[in-house]
């Protein structure tokens, strides 16, 4: 049987469970959407303005960093498996050296980001 059948079954079960419990709750629950209930909750104070305003750019920098490092990481996964499979010492040494080169490039990116203060959350700007 294809290996992903189990995955599909669990995904379907997840959907079925959500749908079932939402429909169940829909049948049970009261519906009186009136008054202040419908305002966004801001600790009881009437909300000021819209939530879709401007936000700190640092979250965006984190997303950029994630792309850089996660992609690097994905390349290291096949390396790790291949490294574990090598029986001969010289092959292993060669692979190790290749990994060092790769990590060195990664470190350049890391050092640049560090220097630019991307990891500092409180820069005051």
């Amino acid at each position, binding site marked *: *049987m294809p290996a992903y059948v189990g995955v599909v079954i669990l995904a379907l079960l*997840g959907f079925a469970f959500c749908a079932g*419990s939402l429909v169940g709750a829909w049948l*049970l629950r009261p519906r009186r959407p009136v008054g202040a209930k419908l305002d*966004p909750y*801001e600790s009881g104070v009437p*909300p000021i303005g819209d939530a879709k305003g401007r936000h700190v750019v640092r979250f965006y920098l984190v997303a950029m960093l994630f792309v850089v*490092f996660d992609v690097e990481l994905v390349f290291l996964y096949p390396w790790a498996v291949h490294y574990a499979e090598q029986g001969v010492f010289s092959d292993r040494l060669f692979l190790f050296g290749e990994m060092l080169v790769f990590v060195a490039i990664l470190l350049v990116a*890391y050092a640049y980001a560090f220097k630019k203060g991307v990891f500092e959350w409180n820069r005051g700007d």
Partner: protein
Amino acid sequence: MVDGWDVLILVIKALAIFIIVPVAPLVFVLAERKILGRIQSRIGPNRVGPWGLLQTLADGIKLGAKEDFIPPAGDRVVFWLAPLFMVVPAAMAWAVIPIGPEVEIGRKIGLWVTDLNVAILYILALGSVAVYGPVMAGWSSNSKYALFGSLRSTAQVISYEITMGVAVLGVLVYTGSFSLVDIVEKQKDMWFAIPQVIGLFVFLVSGIAETNRAPFDLPEAETEIVAGYHVEYSGMRFAMFFLAEYANMFLVSALAVILFFGGWHGWTIPGIEGLTSVLWFMLKTLALMFVYFWLRATLPRLRYDQLMAFCWKFLLPLGIVNLLITAVLRLGWS
């Protein structure tokens, strides 16, 4: 050969493992409240049912019967979809978790739903998909607290996902396989927790941060942003965020057991090896769940800048150093 029995067995296995998603919160919310109570010299819930055992069930029924409204200024469709994006990946990840070895009941049955050869990548990928839940919830609520919670959660989860991935790399250098069943089999003689002690530390810290739990529960810091990305959720939809959170905590514990604590390996009783193996797996996983609750009761919440600095300035370099050390140690191995 595939026959009707295979299909039936697969469906039974999938159902059995899926039970974890709705049942885990029922058990663990109560366990957490009891343990927190004990640690803080309180009693904890003790009114509903014997010793308060039915407390979470009562809470669940209450949530199901509560009014459940959608903020009119928000995005209805996205708001409606967000809980699905929490629960479905949490359920799907359990497909590859082996809770026991292959057992013989008439035929050989592996105690896992499916043994993917890319299981590790699959789990990490689902971890990324799980970020969509908070993003969609926070964005569609049109509430400032919810949006801040979701931004925090996203930044935190993607940052710690990298360190989690780096921690797993050390184990992969030992196993040479992405399959979780293979990884457990390779730990027959020695748990990877011993040679990979740095990796274990990085993995556990990242796991706690990935599941947004104390001391990394900034996305739902009550004192700052009320409840984070699910501020505007109520009733059953709110319950789903809880289900997903506890299912994910249990998943991270199970994953740590599989990667570092030898999975189902332990002393077995002849004749019922299968059963004792599953008990070992559960025992180890529950012990890690206890660590979650213990940390929550013990540690204060970090500040957000501390949280991000800890990940990027300490945990990530530590993980890479661990990878280098592991690779050097394995150089002479053949």
